[in-house]
């Protein structure tokens, strides 16, 4: 069974890939069209903000702290060779705001919340809950998929902001408290180097990453083969495809922002 499936999945090569991409894009369009009517039931969305956001909070804070700390450690070591360790503030702030914060938070989010979404929706399909909804004339896309998509869309930018703030605290902790870089220089140079545009760039990026990661997770769950194995494989695809999408988008958005 599994080998047969594998062959069917891989069959067609480029054509199969294009078909999948098309199916994903059509499904995303369906999600977006269903968004306005789902906004009428905010309680469903709030519950998904809890699932995607509040439950990822501890992971994001922990990882943010250590990403910031290692940035402080490595950055200070590198900058000290040029006698410019005061530049750690701007280096850490810009690195976290523009690249590390949005990207690492999105990758963690895909692993923590995206997989949960996929397996949940996939399992609903496997246990015929989605078919049951259709029987009752309830659109499963509107009732199940869109609230999860919107919840993730709201949660990731907030998680990214928390990640960046904690990361800066971590960089400050190592750079200033541990390695003795002057606190005034650290903050004043950071304030002079960082513009509001840089913060906006990070938030816009994280919004795009949220769009990609959330729609991929929901798509994979909704189209998972309704077997235990199929759900497992869909969950893997969520992580792989979201990571690829996030990293590709990151390059594109960075290039766009640099003009």
């Amino acid at each position, binding site marked *: 069974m599994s080998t047969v499936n594998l062959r069917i999945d891989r069959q067609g090569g480029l054509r199969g890939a294009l078909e999948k991409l098309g199916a994903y894009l059509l499904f995303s369009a369906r999600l977006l069209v269903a968004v306005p009517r789902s906004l009428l039931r905010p309680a469903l969305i*709030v*519950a998904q*903000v*809890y699932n995607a*956001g*509040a439950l990822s*909070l501890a992971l994001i804070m922990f990882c943010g702290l250590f990403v910031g700390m290692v940035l402080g450690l490595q950055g200070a070591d590198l900058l000290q060779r*040029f*006698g*410019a*360790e*005061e*530049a750690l503030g701007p280096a850490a*702030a810009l690195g976290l*705001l523009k690249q590390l914060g949005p990207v690492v938070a999105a990758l963690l989010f895909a692993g923590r919340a995206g997989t949960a979404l996929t397996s949940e929706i996939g399992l609903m399909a496997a246990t015929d809950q989605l078919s049951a909804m259709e029987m009752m004339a309830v659109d499963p896309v509107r009732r199940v998929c869109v609230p999860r998509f919107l919840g993730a869309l709201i*949660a990731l*930018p*907030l*998680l990214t*902001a*928390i990640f*960046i*703030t*904690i990361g*800066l605290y971590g960089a400050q902790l190592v750079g200033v408290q541990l390695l003795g870089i*002057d606190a*005034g*220089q650290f*903050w*004043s*140079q*950071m*304030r*002079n180097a*960082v*513009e*509001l545009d840089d*913060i906006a760039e990070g*938030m816009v990026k994280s919004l795009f990453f949220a769009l990609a990661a959330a729609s991929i997770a929901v798509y994979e769950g909704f189209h998972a083969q309704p077997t235990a194995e199929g759900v497992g494989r869909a969950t893997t695809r969520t992580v792989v495809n979201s990571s690829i999408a996030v990293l590709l988008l990151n390059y594109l958005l960075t290039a766009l922002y640099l003009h």
Partner: protein
Amino acid sequence: MRQSRSIELATGFFAALGFAAMFFMVTQITNRSPTFGDAGFRLEADFDNVGSLKEGAPVSMAGVSVGRVESIRYDQGTYKAHVVLRIQPQYNRIPDDSDAAIFTAGLLGGQYVGLQPGGSETYYKDGSHVELTQSAIVLEELISKFLFSFASKEADQKTAPPAQSPQP
């Protein structure tokens, strides 16, 4: 009901934390007025040119940070930059003929104010004015000075024999 209340609480906490983080980024990381404690005493100094000295930069004596630059503004009366330094209260024995100069930390580092102690028996008090100041070194000025002196030296040497124009 109880469970949905606790979910709402956790969601609210998460959202509040997220917005607090955004607020922190917008107000604290970007160029807003930095807040430092106002312990210690103030010294005032007028510089011809402060270069890229920033508020919050350290004030150091013998390489040790003893205070911060509190404010920098342009004085229209003297045509100079009026800099207020806030010195930590334990460093209250700075001779009142000490001079202040603006240095650069490292090759790419920020600028800071260095105080060199004088020989006076009396000390600076709150609100004292530092008379002797030395401006920041601006690289372009340094280069133009060097080129100018180099050129004038060459011109001096060439005044004795008449300038010869090279023929191709």
